[in-house]
C-alpha cells in the first residue's frame, strides 16, 4: 500500500508536497511524543504522569491518522478511533482510582 501512496502522490500536482508534509508531520509528532515521556518520568505527582500519558495517547491518535494518509491505508483511521476510546477510559479509570480509592465499588 506504501507503493500505491507514492505512485498516487507522484502522479498528481502537489501530491508529492502532500506526501512530504505528511512525512514531516509524522517525524515531528513522533519526536514530540518522545519529549512528553520526560513528564511521565520526571512529573512530581501522579496526576502529572496521568496528564502526560493522556497527551501521549492523543499524540498517538494523531500519528495513526497521519500514518493512514502516509500509506493510503484507511484501516489506521479505525486504529486512531479505538486508541482515542481506550485513552479516555484509562484516564477516567486512573482519575477515579486516585480520588475514590477504587474504580468500581
Amino acid at each position, binding site marked *: 500500500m506504501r507503493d*500505491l501512496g507514492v505512485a498516487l502522490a507522484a502522479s498528481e500536482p502537489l501530491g508529492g508536497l502532500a506526501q512530504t508534509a505528511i512525512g514531516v508531520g509524522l517525524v515531528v509528532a513522533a519526536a514530540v511524543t518522545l519529549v512528553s515521556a520526560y513528564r511521565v518520568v520526571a*512529573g512530581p505527582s501522579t496526576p*502529572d504522569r496521568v496528564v502526560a500519558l493522556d497527551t501521549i495517547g492523543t499524540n498517538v*491518535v494523531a500519528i495513526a491518522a497521519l500514518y493512514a494518509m502516509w500509506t493510503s491505508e484507511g484501516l489506521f483511521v479505525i486504529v486512531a478511533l479505538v486508541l482515542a476510546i481506550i485513552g479516555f477510559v484509562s484516564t477516567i479509570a486512573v482519575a477515579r482510582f486516585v480520588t475514590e480509592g477504587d474504580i468500581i465499588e
Partner: protein
Amino acid sequence: MTMLASLTTPVPGIALAASGGGGLTSPLQAALVVALVAVGTFFLLVGVVGLVRLPTIYNRMHATSKATTLGASSMLLAGVLYFGGDGDGLAALVAIGFLFLTAPTGAHMISRAAQKMGVPFEDGVTWPGED
C-alpha cells in the same frame, strides 16, 4: 460538498484497496491536506512545549488538553479530506467528535483528582472568592 463527492470517485487505472481507498485526486485537496497537517503539527508541538515547560499540573493541563486535542483533530480532518466523506473518512469525523467530547471530560476528572490529592496551586494563586 461537491469537493467531498469528487474525492470518493475512484482513480482510474488503479485498483484501490478493499478498505475504501481514498487518495489525492485534486491539487486543492492536496493543498488543504498540507495546510491541515501543518496546523496539526504546530498545535501538537505547542501542547507538548506547555506540558514540559509550565510550572504546575493545572497549568500543564491547560496547555495540553486544548492544544493536543486541536492538533489531533486537525490531523483527523486532513484524513477526512484524504479518504472522502464516507467509509474511513466518516470514521475520522466520528473520532473528531469523540475527541472533542472526551478530552475536556478527562482533563476535568484529572484536575479534580489532583485537587483532592492536595497538589498545591502556583504560589499566590487562590480559589475565586477566597482571600
